[in-house]
């Protein structure tokens, strides 16, 4: 039993790496534009399907799909930015409905192009067992976990050191003040969408390399990412990482101890619990009450 729980903790942690990438993209875009991009999970899924196409079409390792995924997903993210920026009235709610519509478009486009069949990788190299003491995983899981940690480190460095990264934080903190300091908020918003696209590309390829994908998954990923940002509180990268790992572990433990049917329930319950008990998240400070 202890072995099973340890194994669940380990698998959950590894899964949490990709969750963190997805949630960071969502949180970054929310920070600058104050828009919850409900089509964010679909961007991740798009990258996953590009990995599938590269593997099944060219017969190569799906990891090599990352450049193609980066290009296509970032272009999609930029298009999303321009559409969202066209919303003029009642921005908060209309942009929410707009991105919901974008999600419907992407889900159905994926359905049209790749059909409703469930896909997974056939690469034996990615699926090889890696044994660490009593713990098992596929090779792709620790590999992409390390990639996630590196990307998050890079993002942290970019946000705290580079000019644009600091501009993103400035716009997220106070848009008008940032504008007075000579920052172009619109360009900064565009940059945040592109970064979200980059993170989504890696997360999508990761999800395909160790799991199964289907068109309805995008919606589920958006919800998970939102749950994580609520757990973390807005504006905290370490918080997002902890929230993502927490969700990954909670899901894995539920599957091990109860049933896989309840896997989605645990995220939802965590989400509601945090909203009611600690409305500012585990690490955040911004209020979200009306």
């Amino acid at each position, binding site marked *: 039993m202890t072995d099973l729980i340890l194994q669940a903790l380990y698998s959950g942690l590894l899964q949490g790496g990709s969750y963190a990438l997805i949630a960071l993209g969502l949180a970054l875009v929310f920070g600058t534009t104050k828009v919850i991009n409900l089509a964010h999970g679909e961007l991740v899924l798009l990258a996953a399907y590009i990995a599938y196409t590269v593997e099944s079409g060219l017969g190569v390792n799906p990891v090599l799909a990352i450049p193609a995924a980066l290009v296509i997903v970032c272009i999609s993210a930029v298009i999303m930015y321009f559409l969202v920026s066209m919303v003029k009235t009642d921005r908060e709610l209309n942009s929410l409905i707009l991105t919901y519509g974008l999600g419907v478009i992407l889900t159905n486009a994926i359905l049209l192009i790749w059909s409703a069949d469930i896909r997974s990788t056939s690469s034996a190299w990615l699926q090889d067992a890696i044994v660490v003491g009593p713990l098992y995983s596929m090779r792709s899981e620790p590999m992409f976990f390390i990639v996630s940690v590196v990307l998050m480190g890079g993002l942290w460095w970019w946000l705290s050191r580079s000019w644009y990264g600091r501009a993103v934080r400035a716009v997220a903190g106070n848009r008008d003040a940032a504008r007075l300091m000579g920052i172009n908020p619109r360009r900064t918003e565009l940059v945040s969408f592109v970064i979200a696209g980059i993170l989504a590309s890696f997360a999508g390829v990761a999800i395909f390399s160790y799991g199964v994908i289907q068109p309805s998954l995008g919606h589920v990923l958006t919800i998970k990412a939102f749950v994580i940002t609520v757990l973390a509180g807005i504006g905290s990268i370490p918080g997002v990482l902890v929230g993502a790992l927490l969700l990954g572990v909670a899901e894995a433990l539920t599957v091990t101890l109860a049933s896989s049917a309840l896997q989605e329930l645990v995220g939802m319950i965590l989400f509601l619990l945090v909203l009611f008990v600690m409305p500012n998240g585990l690490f955040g400070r911004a209020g979200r*009450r009306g």
Partner: protein
Amino acid sequence: MKRSLIAWIAILVVCIAVPVLLGHNNYIMSLFIAALVIGGIALAWALLGNLGGMVSFGHSAFFGVGAYVSALSTMEAGVPVMAGLLLGGVGAVVASLVMLPVLRLRGPYFALAILAYAHIFKIVATEWSSVTGGSGGLSGIPAFPRMLGIDLAGKSGSYLIILAILLVFILCYQAIRKSHYGIALRAMHDSEDATRVVGVNSTLLKAMMLFVSAFMTGVVGAFNVHYIGFLEPDYAFNGVWVTLPIIAAIFGGYRTIWGPVLGALTVYLVDQLVFKNLIPSGHQLILGGLLVVMIIFSPRGLVPVLFKSGRKHASA
């Protein structure tokens, strides 16, 4: 007043002409019924959005709960089907009670918290199989009875029921909008803080709008289950019951009363008769595109654009 009376008579004539002219065509009638079901949810969704200022992505929760409550109460407790419809609405209101805490949240947080509830209800319906029949679903749900010599279980009869439900809802919506609650809600739309200052309990008003919206959706869900005669969690809590009503309401104009219903009729019929033939699977792609275009170019919908009656504050 006279003008609105003429409009009502015209609408009634058109509504009754549909089964008289098309009643022999089962396919077309079933499309109309399905469109009105979507229209009912769209109306309830728009009421919450327009009067309560809340966007919900979880109306499938009310739809599913209404369907289950009505199906189970008629099957297990022998409640008459017509009473089951009301019970379905009441069940949805009870379900919305657990959502009351999320009323404190604003904007996106509210929208997504409601979505979380919809997911939880779906999982509960799947896992609580001793009552709900689990993922295998329920069958043999009683159909509508014969009343006054009309077989209400048939296409024309079902059409008349859902039509009557919708007309009652529309009258209720109008009554709420005209009442002093409606004035307070309109003021809340401009500035919730200012409205609270003058002594309006805004949270209570929002809760009441949530109840009304949940009740309407629950009744529509209950109607649908007796009309279809079969129920399973994936169907009852399907995301379609959120997506299509939102598109219909935005297309028609969610700040008007007729917009969501007319939007549902237009969007659903065109989708089924045209888009579905063009792209058999994934035809909602076009609907998603429609939603995006509407939000960007005409977020108030088409009804206000088409019927510019000169009234500046036609919307609540």
